[in-house]
């Protein structure tokens, strides 16, 4: 019960660095970032302009780390940031930002705005201005082990089902396995096919893999709320698990933020490089495909399109693999406008989907995705992020669009010949 403005400001003083200083000094208020943000384009409300979401951070930067700002503060020319302001900004920093990073790639002066939002959330959470929804998710992840409250027994039960359905073993805590597979609780609860798909793919590729009993949950609500201390606790579980099992590679599931948290933030959170590699499942599939370890039969014949999860593509650098994989199993794959690097967010990333009071705004922002889909009119929508999938399904339902959403890994797995059939051949 110690969150306070002072604490928030102190944390911000810690995280403000040269890039942030450079960014704030470069901004010319051109407003182009607004054009890149679906919360602005779909609402037309200028307060959703990305750089504006950082206004308190800018003031703290100027008042703490510039001479003129300090003088201004000393002589009362610039007023200090207040708790009420931060409370007001909560909606802008969390509800209306999915950390999709689109603003960062359009800013003409090169400001990495999402980098700053991520850092601003450190201060916002320390000042007690994080949304209840994300706080709850963090709480459950830390205390129970998963944002949706999934515990190991539930995972074990799921494993049993899958083993029975697929006739393939699901290894748990297998030391020395090549791959340690992580899950997101969405997959455990909503999309159990994912685990079966992994089993089939790994079996066909002939790779050793395992789940980890102490680290099965990949999502990191600590990173979404923007608190490094809590994010570190969650990453540490995975690092400890991976090092205990001495795996070569940890596979991040179809979950965008889990990938960012582990792949790009993890080593920085624990303060040392990893002893293992971190790959997104799509990256692994891409490697298998290149190595000829991914053999499929048959094609999907309906009209398919692919929604790029922001954290995988624009923020993660995995852009081509999903397309190659789509083409391996789909005959009628069409791209949405601005797909790939410039893809539009589903509207629920970065923890936004956990914010109940943000739902109306989220659905408003979904109109962007709707227009993208309307442009290509697909029969089904493929993606590679369980969170995107849930948000997309909600949005499609709201707008009464009859487009089923499927996970890419599962779709690939469906085209892998049954192990029995393989034996028979």
């Amino acid at each position, binding site marked *: 019960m110690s969150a306070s403005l002072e604490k928030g400001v*102190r*944390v911000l003083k810690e995280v403000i660095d040269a890039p942030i200083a450079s960014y704030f000094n470069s901004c010319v208020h051109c407003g182009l970032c607004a054009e890149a943000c679906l919360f602005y384009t779909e609402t037309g409300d200028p307060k959703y302009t990305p750089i504006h979401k950082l206004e308190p951070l800018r003031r703290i930067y100027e008042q703490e780390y510039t001479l003129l700002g300090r003088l201004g503060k000393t002589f009362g020319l610039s007023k200090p940031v207040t708790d009420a302001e931060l409370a007001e900004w909560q909606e802008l920093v969390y509800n209306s930002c999915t950390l999709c990073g689109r603003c960062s790639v359009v800013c003409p002066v090169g400001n990495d705005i999402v980098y700053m939002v991520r850092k601003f959330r450190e201060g916002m959470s*320390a000042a007690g201005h994080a949304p209840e929804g994300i706080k709850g998710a963090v709480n459950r992840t830390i205390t129970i082990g998963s944002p949706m409250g999934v515990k190991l027994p539930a995972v074990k039960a799921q494993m049993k089902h899958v083993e029975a359905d697929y006739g393939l073993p699901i290894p748990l805590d297998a030391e020395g396995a090549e791959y340690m597979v992580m899950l997101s609780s969405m997959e455990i609860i909503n999309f159990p096919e994912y685990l079966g798909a992994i089993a089939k793919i790994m079996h066909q590729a002939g790779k050793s893999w395992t789940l980890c009993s102490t680290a099965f949950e990949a999502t990191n609500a600590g990173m979404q709320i923007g608190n490094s201390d809590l994010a570190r606790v969650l990453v540490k579980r995975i690092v400890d698990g991976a090092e205990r099992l001495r795996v070569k590679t940890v596979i991040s599931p179809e979950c965008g933020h889990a990938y960012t948290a582990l792949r790009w933030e993890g080593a920085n959170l624990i303060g040392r490089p990893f002893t293992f590699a971190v790959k997104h499942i799509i990256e692994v599939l891409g490697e298998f495909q290149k190595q000829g370890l991914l053999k499929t039969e048959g094609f999907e014949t309906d009209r398919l399109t692919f929604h790029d999860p922001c954290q995988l593509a624009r923020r993660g650098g995995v852009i081509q693999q999903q397309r190659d994989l789509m083409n391996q199993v789909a005959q009628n794959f069409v791209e949405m406008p601005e797909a790939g690097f410039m893809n539009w967010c589903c509207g629920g990333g970065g923890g936004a989907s956990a914010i109940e009071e943000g739902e109306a705004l989220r659905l408003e922002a979904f109109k962007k995705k709707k227009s993208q889909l309307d442009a290509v009119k697909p029969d089904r929508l493929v993606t590679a992020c369980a969170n995107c999938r849930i948000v997309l399904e909600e949005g499609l339902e709201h707008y009464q669009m009859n487009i089923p959403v499927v996970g890419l890994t599962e779709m690939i797995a469906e085209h892998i010949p049954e192990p029995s059939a393989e034996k028979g051949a």
Partner: protein
Amino acid sequence: MQGSLIDTLARQGITRRAFMKYCATLASMMALPPAAGRAMAEAMAAAPAATRRPSVIWLPFQECTGCTESITRSHSPTLEGLIFDAISLDYQETLMAAAGHQAEEALHAAMKANEGKYLLIVDGSIPLGLDGAYSCIAGKSNLETLKEVAKGAAAIVAMGSCAAYGGIPKANPNPTGAVSVSDIIKDKPIINIPGCPPIPVVMTGVLAHFLTFGSLPEMDAKGRPKAFYGETIHDRCYRRPFYDQGKFAKTFDDEGARNGWCLFELGCKGPVTYNACATVKWNGGTSWPVESGHGCLGCSEPDFWDAGGFYKALSMPADPLKIASAAAVAGAAAGVAISFANRGKKSAAKSAHETTTLADLEK
């Protein structure tokens, strides 16, 4: 003397056509429209020649006599001489035969006889330092003389840059405390004919105007006749097209200089100098500085001597930058100091870090 001026001229063998030609040329030089030349000729021809010629008193102060030299070398000597013939030059130290007390008597006689009507021409600046002791005539400081003679003048012509603006004597650091005529005399019409020296025809043009219309011609904000100082050297320069094309002489002996390209980069002050050199030219229309391959010095502008150097282009700094490198060092030092303060602040914030627990998310 009887009849109009034209009759006076005719008696001296100057034909009407010669006079018309002179007026056309004078109008051209005064940058007046060609029709004005005819009007001027008609006005002057019809003007009754004064029964007594207007008296002119010429006072030299801190000067080099260059202005007088220039005027006496007017390039149409006969005609311009005639303009001077139309006046009575009652006091001009350099030109007059009289000297000493005789000269002073002539001065005072002229002042007395023409009180309130004579034209006063001044060349040279007036030193104020040491109570004016730097320049005295007949035991009187220039300041005293000027005040005394100006009192009865109808109008004053400040001849040359020294009289008009202080000129070279006033150049930094101005040891004699030199000032211009208009700095001292405030209650008389004053016309400035600046230049170092001024163009002779400007002088005769102003006199012609005074004789024709009995008043001084239209002046600009710096008290100069607009007719001659209405446009810059640059705008009337025959090399202007080269400026526009970006063709510049870079040194005085390069290809550009030989091709007659623009002298801007060699320090020509043409763009900021208002004078008629480019149209009237010097030495009987022979040439003028730019035509001779040298940039304009800007001698008809105030403080031309202190305008940053004759060979420095206008867009160059007038003085070398003195504080630039010191400022850069000071800025870097300030920056480093702030850096240390910032880093201290940041590490203080870091060491005050308390690891956040779940409870810490709540207020």
